[in-house]
């Protein structure tokens, strides 16, 4: 629905004083610290920035971070869609509880997620699986914290989606697989991509759930490498890696929203 920009009358509480306070608050809390981060990353000039992020350990950590995040979102895309489908189109006792449980990773403190996973898949595991300090462990932790993104993106679309189309396809002799590929999936792709983008951004920066599970050389993702640099009193280098990580995250979000737009233009 179109919203016309209002004259001052109705929105008087957004008066200049309010705008001023909001701008100052926003600046002190977010903008100035963020500017300091950007500046800090160029402490040693452009060259310094480049040397820092192309240093072998930095590159290893960035590659690892992007790699595990890609694996994690690929699994999320499939499992998230399956879970969303089951929650919308299936019926079984306890469904409401399962549905509510999906949100838990959003509310769960990340360090608790780490402790939780290590309790069962760590040293002294009752099921005999020890994923501590392995890349598989990193993936499992990331899968847990990013679980809700795809599910919650796909679910509303499935609810809105007309079941008649699926039924028509089925009555015309389409197998379930064909119905899924030709009817359901094309309608879900934008939502899946949206969820995947958010999950990817989250996975790139994740720290709390990994701090107990990762940390050895071949599991040191970028957030852990940044902490190492901060604790080694190299805030400038830490800032350079941080800015690179943010750039990767923003670039992937832009790429995905472009793909989403392209997809929705060509879907019809």
């Amino acid at each position: 629905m179109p919203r016309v920009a209002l004259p001052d009358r109705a929105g008087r509480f957004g008066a200049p004083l309010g705008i001023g306070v909001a701008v100052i608050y926003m600046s002190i809390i977010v903008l100035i610290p963020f500017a300091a981060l950007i500046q800090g990353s160029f402490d040693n000039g452009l060259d310094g920035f480049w040397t820092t992020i192309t240093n072998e350990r930095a590159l290893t950590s960035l590659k690892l971070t992007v790699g595990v995040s890609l694996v994690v979102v690929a699994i999320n895309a499939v499992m998230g869609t399956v879970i969303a489908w089951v929650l919308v189109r299936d019926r079984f006792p306890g469904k409401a509880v399962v549905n509510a449980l999906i949100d838990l990773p959003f509310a769960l403190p990340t360090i608790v997620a780490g402790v939780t996973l290590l309790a069962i898949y760590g040293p002294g595991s009752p099921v005999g699986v020890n994923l501590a300090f392995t890349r598989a462990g990193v993936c499992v932790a990331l899968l847990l914290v990013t679980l809700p993104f795809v599910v919650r993106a796909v679910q509303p679309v499935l609810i809105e989606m007309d079941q008649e189309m699926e039924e028509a396809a089925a009555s015309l002799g389409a197998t379930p697989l064909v119905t899924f590929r030709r009817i359901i999936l094309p309608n879900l792709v934008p939502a899946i991509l949206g969820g995947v983008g958010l999950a990817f951004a989250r996975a790139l920066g994740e720290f709390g759930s990994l701090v107990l599970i990762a940390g050895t050389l071949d599991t040191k993702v970028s957030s852990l490498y940044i902490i190492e640099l901060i604790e080694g009193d190299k805030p400038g280098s830490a800032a350079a890696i941080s800015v690179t990580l943010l750039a990767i995250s923003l670039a992937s979000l832009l790429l995905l929203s472009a793909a989403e737009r392209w997809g929705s233009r060509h879907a019809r």
Partner: protein
Amino acid sequence: MPADPPAVSRASRVGLRTVALVYLFVLLMAPLGLVFYRAFENGFGPFWEAVTTDAALNALKLTIIITVIAVPLNAVFGVMAALILVRRRVPARPLVSALIDLPLALSPVVVGLCIILVWGPDDWLGRFASDAGIQVIFALPGMVLATVFVCLPFVVREVVPVLREVGTEQEEAATTLGATGPQTFWRITLPAIRWGVIYGVVLTTARALGEYGAVAVVSSRVSGQSETLTLFVKQQYDQLGDEAQIGAYGASVVLLVLAISVVLLMNLLNRTGGGSHGDHR
């Protein structure tokens, strides 16, 4: 809901259901169940002792102090920012929106680093604070600033869509009838957006209670002094010995129960508030 989804055979429906439930069980339910089991393995007594040690109680106190400061600040800012974004002509609105969402795109560790870079005793804002004799980094103010930073977007994001949806007719009517700005706000606007505000506050509270990375960077991590509950969990987990293990699992269970309450509350609010909140990020 139709009686039976006919497009998919019963077998594949049960198959998909099994896959989804097994996945959720392995990833979520079994690990959570085991933490509860570990915390209460030796009965309620040891659990209670572990979560009522001085260090644990101090951690809980610090977490509550930080939350009690961060949540109201962000609630007030969130409502103000949403009103400005929706009801005012804002130059470069998409950019402003993106900047408000920035904390969601940053790693918590990076948020902590931002605070260090700007509030260090010789840095941009830290200079003024240290002139005034206030230590920010490795002290309570830094931990509060980190938490406020991380939680900034939640209320704004929840209130903006609600504010768009309620429109301005009622506010205009109130103004026409002679209501002052504050009267219109308290009597018309705030009641109309209350569910959005409450929902945002719940999300903010959950994040403030559970934040680890950003706070870990700016805390001096002295047990019993500058440890929040999440830092306490980490510190206990790193220690060897059964007592520390119970401490880690016990504090985890406390945070877990809080998280579960938040999820239940969110579900309740979704039902009461008309379910307009599709995505809570």
